[in-house]
């Protein structure tokens, strides 16, 4: 299936891009992030803290569907 992945802040700088379209067999955001870290080794040293699917906060073991937009958030630091 095809998904769009978006990277923010430190992730965008590590991956060297803000978003990419990926063909994947990953069923969960956790598996997808591992795949992305293989594509962009600089991501491997990071901990992803939050994930969203189609602009809704999601869990790491949520089910991915074809066409999803998956947002990977590095540790947040608002306030």
């Amino acid at each position, binding site marked *: 299936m095809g998904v769009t992945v978006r990277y*923010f*802040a430190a992730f965008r700088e590590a991956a060297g891009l803000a978003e990419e379209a990926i063909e994947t067999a990953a069923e969960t955001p956790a598996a997808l992030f591992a795949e992305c870290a293989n594509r962009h080794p600089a991501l491997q040293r990071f*901990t992803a803290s939050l994930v969203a699917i189609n602009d809704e*906060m999601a869990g790491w073991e949520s089910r991915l569907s074809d066409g999803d937009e998956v947002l990977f*958030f590095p*540790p*947040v630091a*608002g306030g």
Partner: protein
Amino acid sequence: MRQFSVAAAPIDLGGFRRSLADPSCGAYAQFEGWVRDHNEGQEVLRLEYEVYVPLAVKEGLRIIDEAVDRFGLTRAAAIHRSGLLELTDVAVVVGVSSPHRAAAFDACRYIIDQAKLRLPIWKKEHYASGAAEWVNCRHCAGVEHAHHS
């Protein structure tokens, strides 16, 4: 009145406070987060907030709603800055009005604590040394496969 927004320009604090005034309320509590000149032993010159606005607003409103329901507030609102900020600039403001003070203090604290944990907002500090780092990410280095936890 329940509101959460992200501002790219300095916040109008007077207008913010006036929007929370209500004749049924005997208490108003406000929290401001300011840009500080040091963090973890480094001298900070300025900082930069990156905000993913669609989700920050959605989740921010959820936090405001939770606080209103939980503490029985009359009005509650918060504004978070994005972009480049200088020392002493207001990075975030939270305001709540309620009939009595205990709920106002507690709700203000609840909103800022949850905002720090849940909003997709990132802070990059620019140091006197010339370096710049994303806060909370320095500690990620060396941690592998920890995102499953």
